[in-house]
């Protein structure tokens, strides 16, 4: 079953009927959004009814995803449009995994929203439309290797995110955060488009598989290096913005602090995960294009160094900046930058070990995202409840939490220590698996770059201990006569479930979870990386020296083959 089958043998209708079921999760999500928008006409715009529809939609999407996951277990497919190497959208283990994570997290965030904001929400349908709309965009982000679809998906994920950050219209901090978010988003989007147009101009295809093959060919042959480097950097700029990799991270703390806490929780995990998985998919494609593990062959090495260095800077800056924060929301925002940095490290592993063996880097990041989901949901959940009860998100508001509400303090402790990455919590396992991937020569790691990354990662663990412990210290070691924190039972249940899961992930259920990640990291859709038909250009232009920036489409053309 391969989507690249020649379509001339079947009608468009037949193709649609065959391929649409693969995309049932997205369709279910679209249906949910439409239902949420239409339902107010019939049953009013109450929080309860909207949330019910959304929850039903999330569950249906999850069921659809699980069904699709079985279909694509052994091989990814690509379809929904004609293309020379692959279709517009991809369905494989990576996308189904992400959609599962997305839906679990959407459910968790909805629960948070239900207890924190549902009562005073003025426009629940709009909130859920934006939330699920961004979810749809994010799921499309990891489902494509077509340059154009990719650009649309990134923007599709971003636009609702901007709006949802500023959802409380009268909140100044939210508006400020959203404005920064929009401006950064717009710039990075422009740069991304520029990079994409360069790539299209160079290779005259939108298929990233073919582009990857051609890029590596050019890089190793020393042709078009400036144009290619510029294009790849621009592409990375766009993705780095989503990941909030340093130096594209300035929007992140402000947007995270300004947004409502449910929204912050939402953006902190899945939005970054989407960017990371997209980057990993590109890395995978480049790995495929570079052939099975030959790290001596340098074309990918330069790319690995760029990503590696940015990863190092990202996690170091994130951790160091977090140290001086007094707002827990902001602190967790910087912590999310740092964790994105850790995960970004794995993106520097360019390797392809065959279709059916799991991609070690991807498996490590998938595990990390899964663990990160629970520890972040727990930490943000507790913060949310402290904010609702005290009206403040400063570290000071956590003083003596162990006495004021033990069922908030314990999960918070578990999640924070897990975020540091200490056993026996899940964060340790996640970090260790990441380091194991980095050090694994069979999987493409183990080079000096990767060992430097390992050393930077463990030193960062040490730095991060400081600021996570500041909250722990405030909760456990200090106390004054503050009143107890009243928290909704459902919210307590949510954070305690997260706390227990984080603890169990640390020793009891490592095996099933790593197996789970491995299973979803194998059998990815593998695009064709060679161009069947290469359009010859009439004029031969010497590649680098005559690079003409006034006309990027022509400036970097390859020399036609003789």
């Amino acid at each position, binding site marked *: 079953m391969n989507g690249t089958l020649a379509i001339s043998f079947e009608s468009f209708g037949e193709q649609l009927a065959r391929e649409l079921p693969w995309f049932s999760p997205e369709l279910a999500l679209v249906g949910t959004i439409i239902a949420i928008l239409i339902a107010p006409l019939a049953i009013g715009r109450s929080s309860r009814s909207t949330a019910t529809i959304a929850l039903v939609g999330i569950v249906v999407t999850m069921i659809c995803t699980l069904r699709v996951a079985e279909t694509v277990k052994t091989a990814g497919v690509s379809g929904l449009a004609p293309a020379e190497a692959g279709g517009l959208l991809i369905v494989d283990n990576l996308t189904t995994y992400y959609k599962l994570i997305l839906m679990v997290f959407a459910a968790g965030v909805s629960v948070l929203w239900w207890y924190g904001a549902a009562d005073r929400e003025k426009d629940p349908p709009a909130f859920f439309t934006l939330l699920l709309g961004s979810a749809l965009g994010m799921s499309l982000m990891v489902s494509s290797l077509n340059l154009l679809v990719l650009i649309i998906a990134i923007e599709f994920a971003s636009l609702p995110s901007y709006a949802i950050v500023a959802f409380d219209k009268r909140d100044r901090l939210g508006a400020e955060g959203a404005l920064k978010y929009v401006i950064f988003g717009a710039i990075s989007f422009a740069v991304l488009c520029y990079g994409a147009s360069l790539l299209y101009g160079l290779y005259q295809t939108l298929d990233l598989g073919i582009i990857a093959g051609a890029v590596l060919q050019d890089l190793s042959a020393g042709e078009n290096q400036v144009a290619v480097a510029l294009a790849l950097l621009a592409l990375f700029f766009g993705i780095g913005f989503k990941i909030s990799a340093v130096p594209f991270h300035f929007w992140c703390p402000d947007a995270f602090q300004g947004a409502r806490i449910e929204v912050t929780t939402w953006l902190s995990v899945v939005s970054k995960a989407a960017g990371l998985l997209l980057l990993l998919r590109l890395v995978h494609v480049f790995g495929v294009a570079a052939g099975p593990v030959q790290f001596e062959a340098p074309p990918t090495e330069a790319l690995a160094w760029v990503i590696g260095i940015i990863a190092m800077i990202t996690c170091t800056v994130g951790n160091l900046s977090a140290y001086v924060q007094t707002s827990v929301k902001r602190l967790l925002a910087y912590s999310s930058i740092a964790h994105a940095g850790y995960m970004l490290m794995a993106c520097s592993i360019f390797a392809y070990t065959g279709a059916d*063996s*799991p991609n*070690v880097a991807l*498996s490590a990041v998938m595990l990390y995202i899964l663990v990160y989901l629970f520890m972040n949901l727990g930490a943000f959940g507790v913060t949310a409840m402290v904010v609702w009860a005290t009206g403040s998100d400063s570290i000071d508001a956590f003083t003596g939490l*162990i006495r004021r509400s033990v069922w908030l303090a314990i999960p918070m402790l578990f999640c924070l*220590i897990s975020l540091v990455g*200490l*056993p*026996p919590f899940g964060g*340790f396992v996640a970090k*260790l698996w990441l*380091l*194991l991937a980095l*050090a*694994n*020569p*069979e*999987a493409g790691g*183990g080079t*000096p770059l990767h*060992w430097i990354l*390992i*050393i930077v990662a*463990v*030193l960062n*663990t*040490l730095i991060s*201990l*400081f600021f996570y*412990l500041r909250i722990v*210290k405030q909760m*456990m*070691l200090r106390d004054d006569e503050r009143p107890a924190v009243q928290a909704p039972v459902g919210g307590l249940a949510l954070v305690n479930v997260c706390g227990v899961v984080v603890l169990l992930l640390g*020793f009891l259920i*490592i*095996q099933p979870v*790593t197996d789970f990640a*491995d299973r979803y990291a194998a059998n990815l859709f593998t695009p064709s990386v060679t161009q069947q038909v290469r359009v010859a250009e009439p004029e031969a232009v010497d590649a680098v020296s005559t690079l003409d920036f006034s006309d990027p489409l022509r400036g970097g053309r390859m020399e036609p083959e003789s």
Partner: protein
Amino acid sequence: MESASILTWIVFLPTIGAVLCLFAPKEIVKWVAAIASAAALVLSMVLFSTFMGGGDGGDGAEKVFGQAYGKIHHVLRTDWIVGDNFTIEYFVGIDGLSFPLFILTTVVSFFACVASFNMTKAWTVKKGERAYYVLFLLLETGMLGVFVALDFFLFYIFWEVMLLPMYFLIGVWGGSRKEYAAIKFFLFTLAGSVLMLVALLGMYFYSADAIHAAIDQGGTEVVRQVVDGETVTGIASGYREGGPLLTGGTFDLLEFATNPVIQKHFGSTAQTFIWEWLPFAPTMFMLLFIGFAIKLPCVPFHTWLPDAHVEAPTPISMILAGVLLKMGGYGFLRLCYPIFPTAAEFWAFLLALIGVVSIIYGALCAMAQTDFKKLVAYSSISHMGFVLLGIAVMTRTGFQGAMFQMIAHGISSPMCFYLVGVVYDRAHHREINRFGGLWLTMPKYGSMATLGFFASLGLPGLCGFIGEVYVLLGTFEARDTYAWAGPFAIIAAFGVILTAGYILWLIQRVYLGKAKPEYADFPEATPRELFVLAPFAILAIVLGVLPKQTLFNFMNGTLDLMLEHLGQVQAMIGG
């Protein structure tokens, strides 16, 4: 009679106790905790039956790679996490190296638990009695686990599990600068353990390299075995005859040490780590060494210890001094030396130098202290210097002395800390110069105190003496190998004099002299206090009089085998 699960029971009994503590009624929490740690103590006594009867290790040791270093008893191993290209095992076992330390841990933990009953003031002011005992018991599980874990990953987990309870035990129930002391402890130890983590990754992947290279070359080590109808090609285990073949990297601590393929790969001087200029074995050794040296602690890494000791509540100081410091020494003997013997030789001078400096510097610092507890803390640094020196010279006597010194210090230092705690409970200060004549007001306590401090001083007939003498003799023995060994032994011997100096001066200032009126109404040590002190006092005497029967018999076999093994590895790699 060897039971596979007994170690697991002992290690996790305190955890079970901790869970029970969570749900027990408030009044009986402390009894639940005491019973849990007593249960671990009693059960650990069963292990004596294994080690009784003429020493361990030599008899029945499996004959592989010369002599494997000692037979491991009560082994329980089962796959824990099986990844695509690695296997992490739950692998626990006990040998002559870990046995004395394991027993020490259960003993010290139990009496520290009883000593916690005294913290009544803390309970009335801060409450949290339940949390205290839960954390205490979790800490005990971590400590016991470290001594029996034989899989590096498992070892690392237990090692780290201790951090958080300790942080809270110091940070919540400590003295006035508790927050500073707690974070300092946490940070130092974590710094050491992240280095250990790098070593863990390095050792795993370089052992995988070694195995793969050996299989590819198809030398004599390559064995074929039929498992479930499939032929597996791999390398025979270094110490398990007929065990499963190695086909990739391993986390098995014994395999690292005993497998000739891995040893040749690790020990080769041509082997580099990451970069051409970084030799593999010395780098790994150093990464591990720093991790353990922080715990031991020896001089450049020792600054956390006085703070942690002074601020920690008395029972926690007992645990810290009695057990946690020993993990450093245990780590040297379990990981650094057997796995990287060539690197041990490479670094011998530096290590011995650090040891000697610790001895002298610790003693001088102790002499300058006016705080009772800080004095005992610095004396620990000095005593632990002997451990490092004894190990660094790699002689039989040195190893035995180092091990004995660890146990002896594990008995004398908790006793000293408790002695300080007893007087602090009454006087509410620890200024040495403000005390005087306490022996007159509290005769029983005074006698115990004198005995405890003399044991720490190393008076012949008490436990501290044997370890120090063995270390000094062992260092002298090494003067044929190392030119510096003789002078170092002499300098270290001066440390003994300094120790005598500060301890005698301490006893004079605190216990002797005229009874001061402000301390005249101090009550004599209570039965509970004597119940904690007496066992340590008895052990101090018994170990001092019968060192062979109480300790050397249990561990010499293992230590001899280990040394023999080190020699063989050095010969193999050198030749």
